[in-house]
C-alpha cells in the first residue's frame, strides 16, 4: 500500500521540493516479540483483532509511507487509537519504530546514534503536546527558554531569545507567571513558544488544541495559520478534528487502525474519498468551504468569456456562490488574467448537495 501518490491535479499553492521527512514502510508494533510481526507476511495481512489474539501484539502504525515537503502543513488525521500520536513520536524516535525507514533531509533517523539523535531533537524538530508538557515549577519565560538551556545557551541570551518568542505568541506581561496560573490557551501558547524558541526546521504538533475550549481552539488555529504564513516553517500536525485538519492542512493523511487510508489535499479527501470509511467521515463537511471552483467549473462557452464576476481557481465554492448570487450570473474562473472556465449556480449547487461527480 503506497500513499505517496503524486497529486494529479496541478499544484498551484506550493511547488514540490525535496521532502523534509520521508517515511517509508513504517511499523510500530507493541507487544511481545514485536519484531516478528512486520517481517512475517502472514501476520501483516491479519486484521488488528486477529493479530492481537494470535500474537498478543498491537500494531499502532502499520506500513505507513509519506513525505513531508518543505514549507507545508502536513496533517495526520484519525480517530483516537488510529495510531497518529504514535506515528508522530516515531519521527524523532520518542517511540522507537519497529520497522521501516525515516529520513530527515535525506539522513536516516533510525541509524542515528544517541548524540546525533539529541542534535535532531534539539535543533531540527520541536514538538507541541496535547497537554502542554510544561514544567510546573518554572516561570513562563524559563519554560520557553528550557530548550535553549538544554542546548547549553547562556542565561542572558536564552532569556532574551525566549522573551522575543513569548512576545511573538502574544504572552507579553506573563513572563513571570507559573503554568498553573495560566488558562489552557495561554499554556498552549507557552508550549508553542517553547518549540519555536529553538528555531526548529520542523514543528510537530500532537493534537495541540484538543484540550481547549472551541473558541480558544479557533484562536489558536488562526495563530498557527498566521505563524505559518509569516515564517513558512514546515509543520506536521496531528489532530482528530476533521475541520481542524481541513482548515490547516496543505495535505492530509487520514489514518485508521494504524494505516493511512487516504493521503491528499483537503479537496481531494472531501471531493473524492478513497473508500466508504473516508466518505462516511467527510459526509457532514460543509463542502462548499473546502471544494474549490476548479473542481466545479466547466469549460466556458464563447459567450461567457467576458461576462460575469471573476473568481480565482482556488477560491472556495462558497465564495463563488456569494459572487454568483450577487451577480445573478455564472462566474468566470480567472487564472493569471485568463479565463479557464465558468461556474454557474447549478454546478455550485451540485457541489453543496454532494451530487457532483468525484472529479479528483
Amino acid at each position, binding site marked *: 500500500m503506497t500513499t505517496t501518490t503524486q497529486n494529479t491535479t496541478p499544484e498551484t499553492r506550493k511547488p514540490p521540493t525535496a521532502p523534509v521527512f520521508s517515511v517509508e514502510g513504517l511499523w510500530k508494533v507493541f507487544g511481545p516479540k514485536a519484531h516478528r510481526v512486520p517481517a512475517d507476511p502472514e501476520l501483516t495481512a491479519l486484521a488488528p483483532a486477529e493479530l*492481537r*489474539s*494470535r*500474537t*498478543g501484539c498491537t500494531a499502532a502504525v502499520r506500513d505507513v509511507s509519506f513525505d513531508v515537503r518543505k514549507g507545508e502543513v502536513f496533517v495526520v488525521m484519525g480517530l483516537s487509537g488510529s495510531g497518529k500520536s504514535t506515528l508522530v*513520536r516515531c519521527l*524523532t524516535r*520518542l517511540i522507537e519504530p519497529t520497522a521501516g525507514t525515516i529520513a530527515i533531509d535525506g539522513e536516516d533517523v533510525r541509524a542515528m546514534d544517541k548524540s546525533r*539523535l*539529541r*542534535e*535532531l*531533537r*534539539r*535543533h531540527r524538530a*520541536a*514538538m507541541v*503536546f*496535547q*497537554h*502542554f*508538557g*510544561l*514544567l*510546573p*515549577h*518554572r*516561570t513562563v519565560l524559563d519554560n520557553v527558554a*528550557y*530548550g535553549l*538551556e*538544554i*542546548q547549553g545557551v547562556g542565561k542572558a541570551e536564552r532569556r532574551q531569545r525566549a522573551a522575543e518568542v513569548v512576545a511573538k505568541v502574544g504572552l507579553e506581561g506573563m513572563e*513571570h*507567571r*507559573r503554568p*498553573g*496560573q495560566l488558562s489552557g490557551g495561554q499554556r498552549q501558547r507557552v*508550549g508553542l513558544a*517553547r518549540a519555536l524558541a*529553538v528555531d526548529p526546521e520542523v514543528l*510537530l504538533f500532537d493534537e495541540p488544541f484538543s484540550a481547549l475550549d472551541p473558541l480558544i481552539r479557533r484562536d489558536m488555529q488562526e495563530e498557527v495559520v498566521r505563524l505559518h504564513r509569516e515564517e513558512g516553517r514546515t509543520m506536521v500536525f496531528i489532530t482528530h478534528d476533521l475541520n481542524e485538519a481541513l482548515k490547516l492542512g496543505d495535505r492530509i493523511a487520514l489514518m485508521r487502525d494504524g494505516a493511512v487510508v487516504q493521503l491528499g489535499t483537503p479537496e481531494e479527501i472531501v471531493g473524492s474519498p478513497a473508500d466508504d470509511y473516508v466518505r462516511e467521515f467527510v459526509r457532514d463537511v460543509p463542502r462548499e468551504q473546502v471544494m474549490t471552483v476548479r473542481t466545479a467549473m466547466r469549460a466556458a462557452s464563447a459567450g461567457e468569456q467576458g461576462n460575469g464576476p471573476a473568481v480565482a481557481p482556488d477560491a472556495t465554492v462558497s465564495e463563488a456562490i456569494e459572487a454568483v448570487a450577487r451577480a445573478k450570473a455564472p462566474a468566470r474562473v480567472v487564472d493569471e488574467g485568463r479565463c479557464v472556465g465558468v461556474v454557474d449556480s447549478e454546478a455550485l449547487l451540485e457541489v453543496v448537495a454532494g451530487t457532483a461527480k468525484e472529479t479528483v
Partner: protein
Amino acid sequence: MATITAPTPRGLPAVLRNRAVAKLALLVLAAAILVPLANARWASGSWPAALTVDVSEPLTTASTWIIDNRDSHPLFLYFFGHISNAVVVCVRAVYLVLLAAGWAGVTAAAALVAWRVTGLRLAAGTGVAFLACGFLGMWIPTMQTLALMVVAVLASVVVGALLGLASGLSDRMDRALRPVLDTMQVLPAYAYLLPVVLVFGMGVPAAVLATVVYAAPPMARLTALGLRGADKEVLEAVESLGATARQRLLTARIPLARKELLLGLNQTIMMALSMAVIASVIGAGGLGDRVYQALASVDVGAALTAGIPIVLLAVVLDRVTGAAGERLGDEPQPNGRARWVYALTGAVAVAVAGRLAGRLDWPDTWTLNFAGPVNRAVDWMTDHLYSGVPVIGGTADWAAHFTTWILDPLRDGLQWLPWWSVLLIVATLAWLIGTWRTALTAVLAMAAIGVLGVWQPSLDTLSQVLAAVAVTLVLGFATGVAAARSDRVERLLRPVLDVFQTMPQFVYLIPVVALFGVGRAPAAAAAVVYALPAVVRITTQGLRQVDPAAMESARSLGATPAQQLRQVQLPLARRALLLAVNQGVVLVLAVVIIGGLVGGGALGYEVVFGLAQGDLATGLVAGAAIVCLGLMLDRVTQPTERRAKKGA
C-alpha cells in the same frame, strides 16, 4: 501461540465469587491433607517443640563476642567506630551551634525561617512554641533532642533520597527495594532498637542510627513515588527537546517530584521525632529521657512537662514542612531572596545580642512549674475516676472488665487453638483478601514465630492487638461517620486529631497508667488512643470522597440518612475503610509493644527485658517475632487493590 482472553467486566463479580470459593476449596483440600499429618506428628495445642530452633545460644555468644571485641576488633575500630564517631561529632557540632546561638537566637532563627517558608501566623506559633519549651524548664533537653533530630533527619533524607533515586530510576532496584521498604513501614519502632544497640552499645550513636533506619524508608518510598509518578507528557516534552539523561533528572524529574520530596521530608521528620523519643530507652538523652525518667516515678506532671515540648516541636515541624509543600507552585514573591537575607540577618543579630547580654542559657527564674497542679489534677482523677464511680464504675473497673471479659478469653482462645489451625486461619484471611503471595508471606511469618519459640507470648500480644483494634475500629468508624456527616464535628475534631497524630507514641503511656493502672488493659488503651486519629481521618475522608452523584441519586430516590450511609456511602468507601483497618492494626501493634513498659507483658515485655538486662538474645528473638507479627498482620489486612495501585 498463546491466546489471551480479556475478562469481560460484566462477568467479573461471578468470576470473583468463583475465585473466592475456589480459594476456599483449595485451602480446605490442603488442610484436609496436611492437618491430620501435622496433628499426628506433632500433636500439641501450642507450637510443637520439635519444630523450634533455639537461637538464643548463638545470639548470646554473638552479643558477648561483640561486647568483648568492641574495643579491639578491626571491624569495630575501622568501620563502626568511624560511623559512631561521625555521629558524635555531628551531633555535638549542631548542639554547640544551638547553645552558642542561645535561646533568643534559636527562637528567632526558627521563627524567621517559619516566616519565610510559610507565613506570619506560623512564624508566631513557632516562636511561641520555642519560648514555651524554655518556660517549661526544658530548654537544654529540647536543644539536645533538636541536635539529635537535625543530624538524624539529614542522614535519613540523604539515605532515603539516594535509595529512592535508585528505586525511582531503575526498575530492578524498585522490585528489590519496594517490598523491603513497604515492610519497614509497618514495623513497630521498638523492633529497630535492638540490633543497633547490639553493635553500637547504649548512647547517642545508636539512637541516631536507629532513628535513621526508622525514618529513612518513607523518604525513599516517596522519592521513588515522585520520580515514577511524574507527568509522562512533561518527561516526553523534555525528551523531545533533546535533553540528556542527566538534564532530564535534574531539570525535570526531581523538580517534578518536589511535592513528594517535601512530603517525604515531612514524614521523615515526624518519624524521626517519634523515634528520637523512643530511643531514650537506649540512651538518646534529651526530652525523651525526661519523659522516660518521669514515667519511672509515676510523675505525670513531670512527664507532661517534658512531653509538651515534644508535641510542640512535632506540631511546628509538621506545620512548617506541610505548609511549604502546599505553597509549592504559588507565584514566587518579589524579592524573595532579599527577604531571606533579612531573616537570616535578623536571626544572627538576635543571637549576637543575646550573647552580648550574657543571656545564652535560659534564665532559671523564667521557668513555669506546672507539674504540681497537673499532679494534683491527676491525683484527683485517680481518686475519683479510678474506682467506685456510681453506675458506670471507675476506670480501674473498666480495665478489669476489659481484661476479664475480652483480653483473657481472646488470649486463652488463641493459645488454646491448635497451632496448625492458627496458620490455617491466617492463610484463609490473607488469601481471601489478597493473593496467594500475601497469604504465603503471612503464613511463613506466623510459622517463623513458632520456630523462634515465642509462640505463646506472640499469641498473647496478638490477642491484645485484636482487642485494641476492635475497640479502635468501633470508636473510629463511629467518630468518622459522625465527622463525615457534620462539618461542625469535623471542624472540632480536626485540631484534636492533628495534635494526637503528631504526638510521639511514648507520651500516651503516662495518662493511661494513671487511669487504668497496670496490665494489658492500659497498654491496649494507649494503643487505641494512638491509632484512633488515623482511623477517624481515613474513614472521614473515605466517606466524604464518595461520588456526590451517587449520593445525590440516593437522596433523589428518597433514601433516609441511615439508608444512604448503609447502602451507598459505606460500600463505596470500602477501600478507605479497609485501609483504615490496615493502618489501625499497624499503629496498634506499635503501641501494644511499647505497652511492655506498663505491664502489657508478652513480646513487648521481652523486648524491654532484653534491653534492660542486656540480654540481647531474648530481645532480638522477641524483636524478630514482632517483625513477623507486624508482617503477618499487614498482609492479612492488606487488600490487593492497594498493592496494585502502588505498583502503577
